[in-house]
């Protein structure tokens, strides 16, 4: 995949995305989705899909923009900045998994135009997003397959029209497709701490499924899809960190105590300077990983690991310190900073923890 947009086209695209989000994804909109607790704003997703956001990572022959990882990352910064409650991460995973498979022509156009939501089940209850922690077994039955076991923390499974499931077979991990409404499938929504996040446990008890991947181990392709999703997630984290930091600095400028702006106190000012370093480093890490994947750089995997833990840690620290810098007002529900904290805490667990990504990074450095 390559970035096919010029710099001007990219800026224009991001600009219209920002305008749409400013209009359609305000704090009030995010809170409305939180109340509904299905983690999804269908109308917003439809409009984003019309702009091409849902199909950013999908090739043009399948109805997407085919804009590549670097552009995807930039778009995710914008979505992260406003905590947009969308199934974009699932869409990215599905796009990457399906590209090159026979099912691509059947499934991807619907994902690209937003009419199909595909949920991707890759990990078991241990939630390490590794081949070893896949919790579903697939065995042949007749012309097809049947699934047995449990997939955990499946994003957007409660909204999905299609489930894509990684399951263990005799010849390695395979990719399977079935309907979430099929017999033998039980989707139970999980009560997510980030209430803009749709997440479910999915249990399979002899459910019929179609094998999409060819014979042999498909986990290397799953790992590729996860890396693309990690870059998207890093963009969301970097964008969220930058925005919550801006909110905090604005507040520090306006809030007065002891007859002066609290931002004039070095105790606050120095925290702000440190957080600027964190949030700008997150932007650099995420963008670099996007470019490295887009260019197929030799050390792209290492750049993805770095972005994964650097952006997760930065988002966590910036949101946590932002609450402290605000003081009492940010301990109240009506203040938006805790919404970012909730997202940061969820994002730091997805597709591998920061500690796991650091370990992967050291291995990639030769350790």
């Amino acid at each position: 995949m390559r970035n096919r947009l010029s710099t001007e086209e990219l800026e224009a695209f991001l600009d219209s995305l920002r305008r749409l989000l400013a209009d359609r994804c305000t704090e009030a909109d995010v809170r409305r989705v939180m109340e509904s607790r299905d983690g999804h704003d269908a109308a917003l997703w439809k409009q984003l899909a019309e702009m091409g956001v849902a199909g950013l990572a999908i090739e043009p022959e399948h109805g997407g923009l085919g804009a590549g990882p670097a552009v995807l990352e930039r778009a995710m910064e914008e979505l992260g900045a406003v905590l947009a409650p969308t199934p974009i991460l699932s869409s990215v995973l599905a796009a990457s998994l399906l590209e090159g498979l026979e099912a691509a022509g059947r499934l991807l156009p619907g994902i690209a135009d937003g009419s199909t939501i595909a949920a991707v089940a890759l990990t078991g209850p241990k939630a390490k997003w590794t081949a070893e922690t896949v919790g579903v077994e697939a065995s042949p039955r007749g012309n097809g397959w049947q699934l047995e076991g449990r997939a955990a923390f499946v994003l957007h499974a409660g909204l999905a029209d299609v489930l894509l499931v990684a399951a263990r077979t005799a010849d390695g991990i395979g990719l399977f497709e079935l309907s979430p409404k099929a017999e033998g499938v039980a989707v139970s929504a999980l009560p997510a701490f980030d209430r803009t996040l749709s997440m479910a446990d999915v249990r399979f008890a002899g459910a019929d499924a179609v094998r999409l991947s060819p014979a042999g181990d498909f986990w290397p392709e799953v790992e590729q899809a996860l890396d693309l999703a990690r870059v998207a997630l890093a963009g969301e984290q970097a964008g969220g960190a930058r925005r919550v930091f801006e909110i905090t600095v604005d507040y520090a400028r306006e809030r007065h105590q002891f007859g002066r702006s609290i931002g004039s106190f070095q105790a606050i000012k120095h925290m702000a300077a440190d957080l600027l370093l964190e949030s700008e480093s997150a932007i650099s890490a995420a963008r670099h990983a996007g470019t490295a994947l887009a260019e197929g750089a030799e050390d792209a995997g290492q750049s993805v690991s770095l972005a994964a833990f650097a952006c997760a840690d930065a988002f966590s620290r910036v949101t946590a310190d932002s609450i402290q810098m605000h003081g009492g007002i940010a301990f109240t529900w009506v203040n938006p900073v805790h919404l970012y904290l909730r997202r940061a805490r969820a994002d730091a667990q997805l597709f591998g923890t920061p500690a796991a990504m650091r370990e992967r990074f050291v291995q990639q450095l030769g350790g």
Partner: protein
Amino acid sequence: MTEEQLAAEVRAWLSANWDAKQKVKAESFGRSPYQPFLQKVVAAGWAVPTWPKEIGGLGLTPAEGRLIEAEFAAVGAPGAGQDRHNLWANTALAHATPEFRDEIVPKLLTGSVGMCLLYSEPGAGSDLAAVRTRADREGDNFRVNGQKVWTSGAAIADYGMLIARTDWDAPKHKGISFFFLPMKQPGIDVRPLRQITDEAHFNEVFIADALVPAANLLGPLNGGWGVLQTALAYERSVMGDAARGPRSGKSSPKGDGALVELAREAGVLEDPLVRQDIAQVTAWKILNRLNNARAKAELKRGTSSPIMSLGKLAMSRILHQEARLRTQMLGAESMLEGADFPRAEDANFLSLNAYFTSIGGGTDQIQRNIIGERVLGLPKEPEVDRDMPFREVKSG
């Protein structure tokens, strides 16, 4: 002239005048070892191409200037880009009288005078405007008395850029003047300053009844604070992100895998806590590179970048944490020093010299103030001595 023509002209000139074998390790303070070559560079206009023709430039655009710099850099030749980097010449150009400017600037551009900075004092570190070195008018001269510190290159300098108090009744920022002080005269005593690393890169300068011609005053009398801001801006732009690593380098593999190699040698690569720390410190190093690259790219596009201000904080954290990690890897061996224990030597040196970055050139705390105030637009702390006659200010 098109860019291609200009680049071709510079290349042709360099191939006629520059011999890469001339290359030597140059110090940034004393007189330049390249003087004969630099005279040719200045005569050709390549040293300061964006300056007007009347003062030795070519009247070119900044983009054309950078193109010339790039051609010089490609063959490793010195002397180009001084319109951006030469702190001394730019300060003199901006603030010296025309007579003094015409006398000193050519010497500064050709490296035929050595320079040093006479700013900090024992009682004026972070609070530079609290200087107590005094300059009193006597006929055509000022008589200078006081003490300066952290002066690199003082022993070999011909001039020092000096800030000294010329009005004790004005508030602290408004009674300072800026001079080019001749260093080679009685009354100037330079003493090396032994650092915690047991090296001596800096000096103390004791000034007793030294004289500076009034013609060497830069900017208005008592307007030295403004001149200093110009000089500091150029200094920061050349400081860049370079920082010294371990001293011997003997125990120091290079590249992003360096800490992994060190851990392997020390037999602690399997320790999961060490592995996590290796990832973190290496990540900070890479992130600093990525930040700098992004800042440069944004600068090229004409958008000013807040990232420029962050390099120093980032580097301080890298150096201190790398020192901690190296010490942790070595364990008891880190109690030793000397040539037989290069790994301990490196870790111990780094643990001390990290302060060169986190204190030097303004402490990290001052840097956080600067970021907060100039980048993020947060208000300044009230300064109780700002409008007080300096004579009444407590300092030291």
